[in-house]
């Protein structure tokens, strides 16, 4: 499964004088779990936003399954099959958990203003389908008992799960996870690792921004390292661990093994 599902070429994005992302090119192969790591301020979330369409790059390109999606709007990108979660959960606070996930079915369904207002019969069937597929996902993630609960009332960990469920409801081919382990304890992180692996086994490629190194080393097939907006290294976790440039940006110059005494 070496087909490239996502590719970026020389992505550039600056804010005023700050180069958040500078000349970043990398690829993600289908079916892999790719990690995106780097110190704070390295530009990881900006890179995510560039891929997901929240902001547009000043230079460079993004391609998904061979198709240029640079500067496409987020909803169009979602329809193509890229879903994302957010660093701070953005649930629809006043809607129920089930409704939250039902919104996730949006790109795969089609009843619009007129059909909705007139409550045409074909929309009833679609509504049934939306509801049952949303329930299915909730069951899989162990959230079915919270289906009718208002999203804002859930615990933090469960809210994160709901955001997961919602993203999965869009039937994505590529899932962008922005610091999914943030704020989770050890057990929850382990469960998260299991979940991500299960998702990957279903055929969904994952691109994960994370700070939790144990999680990253555990589940990622490949890593991309950013620092100050630039790509520092790309490769399998073992190689990255030993890469002197990577070590330097995390731990400083003193720790790089100097081959010449």
């Amino acid at each position, binding site marked *: 499964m070496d087909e490239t599902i996502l590719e970026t070429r020389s992505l550039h994005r600056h804010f005023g004088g700050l180069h958040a992302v500078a000349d970043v090119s990398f690829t993600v192969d289908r079916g892999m779990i790719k990690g995106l790591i780097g110190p704070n301020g390295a530009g990881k979330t900006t890179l995510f936003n560039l891929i997901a369409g929240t902001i547009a790059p000043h230079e460079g390109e993004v391609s998904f399954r061979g198709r240029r999606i640079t500067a496409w709007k*987020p909803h169009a990108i979602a329809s193509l099959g890229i879903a994302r979660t957010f660093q701070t959960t953005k*649930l629809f606070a006043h809607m129920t958990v089930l409704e939250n996930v039902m*919104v996730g079915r949006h790109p795969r369904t089609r009843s619009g203003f007129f059909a909705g207002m007139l409550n045409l019969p074909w929309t009833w069937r679609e509504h049934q389908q939306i509801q049952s597929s949303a329930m299915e996902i909730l069951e899989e993630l162990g959230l079915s008992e919270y289906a009718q609960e208002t999203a804002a009332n859930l615990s933090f960990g469960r809210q994160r799960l709901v955001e997961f469920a919602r993203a999965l409801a869009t039937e994505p081919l590529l899932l962008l996870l922005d610091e999914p382990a943030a704020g989770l304890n050890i057990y929850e992180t382990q469960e998260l690792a299991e979940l991500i692996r299960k998702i990957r086994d279903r055929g969904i490629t994952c691109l994960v921004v994370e700070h939790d190194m144990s999680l990253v080393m555990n589940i990622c097939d490949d890593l991309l390292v950013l620092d100050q907006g630039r790509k520092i290294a790309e490769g399998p976790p073992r190689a990255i661990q030993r890469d002197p440039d990577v070590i330097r940006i995390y731990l400083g110059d003193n720790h790089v093994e100097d081959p010449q005494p």
Partner: protein
Amino acid sequence: MNLTRYIPILAAATLIITTQLLLSAIGQPFYMREITTSAYYALVVIGLCLLMGYAGQVSLGHAGFFAIGGYVCGAMTTCNLIDYRGAWLLTLARPAKLLIERQDLYGRNMLCFSPWGSFIIALLLAAIIAYLIGLPVIRLKGHYLAMATLGFGLIISRIVQGAKVFGQADGIYNVPPFQLFGNIQITGDSDYRIQNYYIAWAVVLAAMLLAINLVHSRVGRALRSIHQSEEAAHSLGVNTFQYKLGTFVLSAVFAAAGGALLTFYNGAISPSEASVMKSVRYVAIVAVGGMANLWGAMIMGIVLNFLSLRHKFGIYDEAVFGAILIAVMIFAPNGLLRMPRRELLQRFFSRRSYG
């Protein structure tokens, strides 16, 4: 499909019928006139509630759309084209039943647009204008959007005040009745009073039906999601711009329908219907009814307009709406009808403030 959502409609229908029977029985049927008028104003409020409560957009210019509906219908049904009979455009319009010949008050022959024709054109025009205005304006946020819609309302207000074809300061009058089917017509004639009462309510309930359906549909869910987290909705495939624009256009059409039908009912329309105060009034009603509460908005629309029309507020009419706006925002930002009474009293006596 959950049918419980329609229960309030049946309840409302029962109440409406009961009220009419009651009023007729006790010999006070003229209240129906104000109720009918309030019903047409409620159309605006229903549409605005969809826009403000569900799509989360504010509009300080909705009286403009009301005016578009009313003035277009008024002007088209009263402008005498008899001198232009030969024009080819008119000969096209004739078979389409758009034009009719009729006699005015003084027995002179007139060639005007038919009420049906003008009604449809008015709604289409309102939709087109709303679309064109919405395109650049909907993507603005918060205060900018409010000001832009205010500016739009002001422009419409100036146009109807300044243009000869719209009667300038006097407005348009002698608007003919709207012949719906057979002998059913929208008119202020007291012989048709009860009929018009039911026509108005039928229209309002139909609008509520459409609005309720929309809110419970995929689009309604998408709108609510936009309101609560636009970024997340966007990332889930919801075309936020199109949905906001669609709701804007829909609310404009509702408002225009209200304006058009009320113009036929009153037989006239005046520039005050396009004023900023009217727009603010509609916003106040939606706020008091509960931003995302369709029934609350409709009920408040009827109640407040009725009281205003019966001059219950006297010379303090405008001030009352201003006070309502303030009070609702402080004490019951989610609308009066959603507040448990105890909490309402608590808030009234406490020294709350933002931190």
